[in-house]
Structure formats: structure tokens, C-alpha cells
């Protein structure tokens, strides 16, 4: 392993870019030329090798396990699932519950986080209990929730809401508590009302942290969606599809499910990132002005 230590000229050049300060600010051409693989394609080498290995293992019978299915088999299953509509029914059910839980949990989390952040009395009264409950592993709540709310969608949405609630509260609270004192002083000079203070100073200043909370809430809700479908086994969902595949030893269906889960997670992550960039665009301009 080698460290690419930038020469002074390269260092000066990278200082201008957003990559300044990284250890990998190496000349872009050298490694590619030396190793013969264009840089943009390197990321695909490992997946291609894994796929080839998988294909070869099946083709040449390296393993006699019936659980080792060919990549083509998985593709056929994917097509069948899409054409029959089963995929869309299961995925639709999962995403609907995910969205419902996320909206409910994140909304309540935002309000609770604002209350914690703005009121020291409320924080003193409720904060310790909140942080104590937060310690309990999220999934440990499922058995209790299933007794209190049953095994249907109600229980699942309650659970997903809980999953989204905690990160939303924490990030909102942290964001509000990090508002610079100077901003608050200027608001006082302008004789802002409480509402003006909240909507024009506190929330805008806290928005990066709040959006980070939204991002986390979205991911946690998706994670919880799978857990809810495994543990509250009733109804439709992509998690139910995977459990069904496992119980029948349908490896192709299980692998297909893993891929779908990964793609949905990636998509939610991407959506959250894009939304965050778009909604915080005003902030970037302000920071640029300041610099």
C-alpha cells in the first residue's frame, strides 16, 4: 500500500477543488496508464469478476448444492415476477407502509425535536426519558407492538413510525441547539416576535441537521419495513416474498429479493440526497457569499 503524496504544484492545484485535503489527490493519468484499466471502469472490475465466478461455479459444477442457482435463473425469476405483477404488488405494499410510517414518525419527530430544542424546561422534563427509551434496540419493540396493535398494517406502520421518529428528534434537536448565538442576538435587535425568530432564524439555521434527520429517518424506516415483514408475518411485502422464497428453498427468488431491497435502499438514499441538495441550495449561495 502506498500513499500518494502530492507534489507542491499538485497540492496547489487540488487546494482549489473540493477534494483539497485528501490523501488520494494523485495525478489522474498515472495509475490508469500504469495498470491499463481506465479509471472510470475500475469500479466494475470486481462485480464482473464476482459474476463470472458465480457463473463458472454453476456451469462447471464446482458445488453440488441445489441452492447454487445460475445468474440466468435469477434473471428469469425477475422477469417472471415483473410480468406476473407479483413484484409490483409486494413492492407497492412495502413502499406504502414505509411512506406512511416515515411521514408519521418524521412529522412527530420534527415537532418533538423542536420542542426539546426550544424549551429547556421541556428538555429537562422529557429529555432523560426519551434518551433512555432510545437505548432500547428498535426491533425489541416488535413483540410488544404486535401484542398491542396486532399483526396487520397498523402494527407495522406504528413500528415504522418509531423507526423514523428517533433519528428525526435527535437531528432536529441538535440542529436547533447549534444555532449561533450571534444569529439570535441580531434577531433580538430587529425585535423579532417568537414566531419570526423560529421561522426566520432558528429553523433555517437548523435545516442542514434537520434534513440529515429526514435522510436517516427514511433509511431507518426502510430497514424497519423489512424487519416488520419478517417478524409480523402476514400480508404482502418484499420481505414476505423473501421469507417465502427461503421457506421453499427458492434461492433464485431470495436473490432477486436481495437485489430489489438493495435497489430500493439505493433509490431512497439518492432521493433523500437530491432533495437535500435542492432544498439547501439557498444555503450554499449564502456560504459562498460569506467566503
Amino acid at each position, binding site marked *: 500500500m502506498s500513499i500518494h503524496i502530492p507534489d507542491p504544484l499538485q497540492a496547489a492545484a487540488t487546494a482549489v477543488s473540493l477534494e483539497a485535503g485528501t490523501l488520494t489527490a494523485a495525478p489522474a493519468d498515472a495509475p490508469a496508464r500504469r495498470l491499463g484499466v481506465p479509471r472510470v471502469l475500475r469500479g466494475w472490475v470486481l462485480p464482473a469478476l464476482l459474476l463470472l465466478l458465480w457463473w463458472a461455479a454453476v456451469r462447471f459444477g464446482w458445488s453440488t448444492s441445489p441452492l447454487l442457482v445460475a445468474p440466468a435463473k435469477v434473471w428469469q425469476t425477475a422477469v417472471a415476477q415483473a410480468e406476473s405483477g407479483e413484484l409490483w404488488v409486494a413492492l407497492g405494499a412495502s413502499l406504502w407502509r414505509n411512506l406512511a410510517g416515515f411521514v408519521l414518525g418524521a412529522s412527530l419527530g420534527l415537532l418533538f425535536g423542536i420542542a426539546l430544542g426550544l424549551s429547556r424546561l421541556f428538555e429537562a422534563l422529557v429529555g432523560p426519558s426519551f434518551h433512555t427509551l432510545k437505548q432500547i434496540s428498535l426491533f425489541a419493540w416488535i413483540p410488544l407492538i404486535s401484542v398491542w396493535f396486532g399483526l396487520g398494517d397498523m402494527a407495522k406502520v406504528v413500528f415504522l413510525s418509531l423507526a423514523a421518529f428517533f433519528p428525526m428528534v435527535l437531528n432536529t434537536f441538535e440542529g436547533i441547539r447549534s444555532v449561533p448565538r450571534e444569529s439570535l442576538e441580531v434577531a433580538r435587535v430587529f425585535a423579532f416576535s417568537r414566531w419570526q425568530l423560529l421561522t426566520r432564524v432558528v429553523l433555517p439555521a437548523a435545516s442542514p441537521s434537520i434534513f440529515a434527520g429526514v435522510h436517516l429517518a427514511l433509511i431507518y424506516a426502510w430497514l424497519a419495513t423489512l424487519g416488520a415483514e419478517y417478524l409480523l408475518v402476514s400480508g404482502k411485502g418484499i420481505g414476505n416474498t*423473501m421469507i417465502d422464497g427461503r421457506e421453499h428453498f427458492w434461492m433464485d427468488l431470495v436473490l432477486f429479493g436481495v437485489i430489489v431491497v438493495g435497489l430500493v*435502499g439505493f433509490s431512497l438514499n439518492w432521493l433523500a440526497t437530491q432533495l437535500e441538495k435542492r432544498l439547501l441550495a439557498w444555503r450554499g449561495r449564502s*456560504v459562498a457569499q460569506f467566503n
Partner: protein
Amino acid sequence: MSELTSTLVAPAALRPPVPAKARRLGLSRGVRLLLAWPVPLALLALWWLAARYEWVAPQVLPAPDVVAATFRDLLVSGELWDNLVVSFWRVVWGFVAGASVGLLLGVAMGLSASVKDYIYPTFKAFSQIPVLGWLPLLMLLVGIDEALKIILIAKAAAVPIALNTYKGIQNVPTQYIELARVYGFSRRQLLQKVVFPAALAPIWNGIRYGLTHAWLALVVVELLASSEGLGYMIVYGRQLFQLDVVMAAVVVVGAVGFALDKLLALTEAWLLRWRRQ
């Protein structure tokens, strides 16, 4: 007005965080400690009343004293301790395996642009799929014995550790590297005296996240595929409608998670004590 406001809030990203002391204005420590109790005590009273007057069936909400008695029984019988030990060692082995892989990957990607180019995209793709997504697949591949649990726990720990280690090393300031070059540091010296000390805080952050994720993964996998451990106690209690057992186990799960994180926080403070000098 809005333009001025926007400009004024811009410094938020560049200002140091508000001193902790300032946050305590208005409420002394003693008052805060006292104010922490009304809410939990009120909830406890409400719980006791609900059970006493059977607003909810005992199977659905056992009384606090019943839960306390059950907790004591489980402690005396050794059942609680036995399951705790099983869970604890699973998380230890899984975490050690995951942390080893995570640190190795993170360091390799952080120090070598080539390794990062080849491995990072695949690593990122695998990390997108949560532990739960892998569960049915791994159940088929390795069965539901210890291997399943160790692998899932290791995976849960490896991802945050690898990411934080990689980014920690990536973000070591260029100035530090330049200064090391001026002093004629060898590669080994550069790593030992500059890169790793500078990246220690984010790496440790990753380790803490890794342990939290490992503990979470343990509970999940025990809920789904185990006949021992705290997670299994929760499922067992649920199936028999013994919610007192469920609640007792849940409390233990929470307490252990808290203790593990506290332990790592204290270790971090010790490891980073040199930064405050």
C-alpha cells in the same frame, strides 16, 4: 429582510458549536436532575393504575410489580444470565470479525487510490443492502446456526467501521502531510505519527457505530432465527403471552446496549487524551 437573514445564518456552518455552559442558562444542574423524574414516575403510576383497574388485560399489559418479580425470578433462576452470556459472546465474536474486516478495508481504501477505485463501488453496493436483506439468503447458505449470527453481526459492524475509517483517513489535512514531508518522514513514520493519530477520532466513531449496529443486528437475528439469547427470550415470552418476560428482556437489551456504548465512549476519551494537552 430575508436576504439579510439568509446572509446572517450563513456563518452557522463556520462557527464553533455553542459552549456547553451557555446551554445550561436558566436551569441549574440540581433542578435539571429533579425535573427528570416527574415524567417517568407519572408513566409508571399510569401503568400501575392501568393494570390495577384492568383498563387493559393483564396478558397485554402486566403490572410493574409483576414485571419486577419476573425479573427477579429470571435472575435467581439463572435464565436471564445464561441468555445474556450467549448474546454477549455472539456480539463479541461478530464485532471482532466485523471490525477487523472493516478496519482493513477502510485503511486500504483510505491509503490507496487504486484500491479505492476497485473496491469502493462494490463495497458501497453491498452496504446499501441492510443486514435484514441478507438474512433469508444467508439462512439458505449457512443454515440457522451460529455462523448465520456471527456473519450478520460482523456485516453490521464492518460497514460503519470501514466507511468512517476510510473517510477519516481521506480527510487528514494536506498541511499535515506536507509538514511530514518537510521533516523527511519515512512512509512508516508518516502513517504512525501523522495519518493514524489524525484519523483516530473518526475511526473510533466508526467503531462505536459498529458496535451499536452489531448489537442491533444481534437482537434482530435472535428474534428471527435462534433458540438462545436475549432476542429469543423476547420472542418466547411473546409467543406464550408472557409480556412480563418480554419487558424484562427488553430492559436488559437496552441496558447492555447502553453499557457497551458507554464503555467505548470512555475508551475514546482515554485514547484521545493527548489531543487535549
